[in-house]
């Protein structure tokens, strides 16, 4: 039963996507739509192969900005969540600010960052940080706050200090939430870097896409989109692997339950 379920979980979505692509291919191939408006999937694939060098080079730049922004935001988030969790007044002060940063549209902030920080990597990295910081911090804070109070009391009655309580109880119990925050951040991070490049930059996938768009090479735009999508999924999968490795106890099913 389980195997059948697993197969249908993979086969059904793949089948659906294949059908969609087939319809797309036949519509574009029929000549009803101009290639510069909607290029056929085969044309996009062809364009991806032909421009592999240019796309690859720009991808590396975007990946660098994404990775830097993502890692920095993980570090900042952990520090922020720790400080906010351990000092109640800081949480009260920073919480509204934290939410406020998420209400400002990134697309408007991005050009401002270029005015402030120039055309280099910095404004892109800051955008990635801005996008990733919130879900990670919030999920970690939530994780810290929902730790079983009795568990904390037990550790306190055993004489554990603050550092030990964080190490033994708070961090491990916040991990599942932390990882869901990280996954959300990871899926958005490459997009964030691309937006940063799109509004102004020297290179990167965003720059490549805006140049392709301006010369009506829609196939190249789509090729870059495919790269972004594949990379985002890849990024997510890596994080899921790390998650599985570090939280084996989540995987334990009731099947392995021992009776006396």
């Amino acid at each position, binding site marked *: 039963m389980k195997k059948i379920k697993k197969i249908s979980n993979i086969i059904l979505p793949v089948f659906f996507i294949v059908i969609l692509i087939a319809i797309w291919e036949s519509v574009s191939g029929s000549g009803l739509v101009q290639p510069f408006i909607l290029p056929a999937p085969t044309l996009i694939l062809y364009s991806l192969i032909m421009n592999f060098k240019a796309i690859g080079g720009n991808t590396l730049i975007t990946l660098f900005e994404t990775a830097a922004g993502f890692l920095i935001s993980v570090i900042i988030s952990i520090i922020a969540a720790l400080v906010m969790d351990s000092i109640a007044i800081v949480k009260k002060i920073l919480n509204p600010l934290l939410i406020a940063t998420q209400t400002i549209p990134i697309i408007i902030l991005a050009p401002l960052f270029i005015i402030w920080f120039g055309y280099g990597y910095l404004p892109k990295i800051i955008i990635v940080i801005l996008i990733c910081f919130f879900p990670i911090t919030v999920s970690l804070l939530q994780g810290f706050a929902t730790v*079983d109070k*009795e*568990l904390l*009391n*037990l*550790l*306190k*009655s*055993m*004489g*554990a200090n603050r550092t*030990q309580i964080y190490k*033994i*109880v708070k961090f*491990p*119990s916040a*991990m599942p939430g932390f990882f869901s925050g990280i996954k959300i951040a990871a899926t958005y991070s490459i997009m964030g870097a691309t937006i940063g490049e799109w509004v102004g930059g020297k290179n990167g996938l965003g720059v490549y896409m805006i140049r392709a768009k301006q010369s009506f090479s829609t196939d190249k735009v789509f090729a870059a989109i495919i790269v972004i999508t594949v990379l985002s999924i890849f990024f997510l999968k890596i994080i899921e692997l790390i998650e599985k490795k570090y*939280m*084996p*106890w989540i995987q*334990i099913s*009731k099947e*392995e*339950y*021992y*009776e*006396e």
Partner: protein
Amino acid sequence: MKDKIKPVIEVTNIKKSFGDLHTIKDVSLILEKNQFVSIVGPSGCGKSTLFDIISGLEKPDIGKVLIEGEIYNGKTGRVSYMHQKDLLLPWNTIINNVSIPLMLKGLKKRESQIKARKYFPLFGLEGFENHFPAQLSGGMRQRAALLRTYLFANDIMLLDEPFGSLDAINKRKMQLWLLGILKDLKSSILFITHDIDEAIFLSDKIYLLSERPAVVKTSFNVDIGRPRSNRTFTSVEFNKIKRKILTLL
């Protein structure tokens, strides 16, 4: 050497309120060395609060907590305290879970695991060192929690309804098991329960508490010889004491 006449735990005239909620009105009790003393009372009468006070997690409004003659009001870390929930960390294996108190005392991870491992057979956990709590049955989890409690402070233990979440059959098994290992443990135990049979079966002395705000209604010794067994439950003395408690409640 400490004065042997001094009781292990002496609680005198404890009073505790949380805002308008008067939880404990006036409770005094004594636990002698190597004694097993039960506190029986209706649910929500402040038994757990009493343990929070004795363990030092809460401070009493009035009254004193003396442990081996010294004042321990609001001071944690002396006695071990086991809750009704097993409170095992789901992300740690059983061996890691039970060695936490040893590591908190400053032992290295390896040393504490070697020390903890010795007790696995006695606690019926041999072979389950590297399992996660979710893989164990309720009774085994409670035994693991008890082992962790024991490794923290083995001379004085507060057990708050440790078998409360188990079904009747497993509960009986655990009571027999606990009784069996008591002579090896050499601990003084304060035990909370609302199961009268359990209290009589295990204890040397029983304190009956009233409804909230709690006062000690009465206390009496359980003069049933040891070793006790399944037969104890149907003995004349057992039923005499049970009748006495039932008329008082």
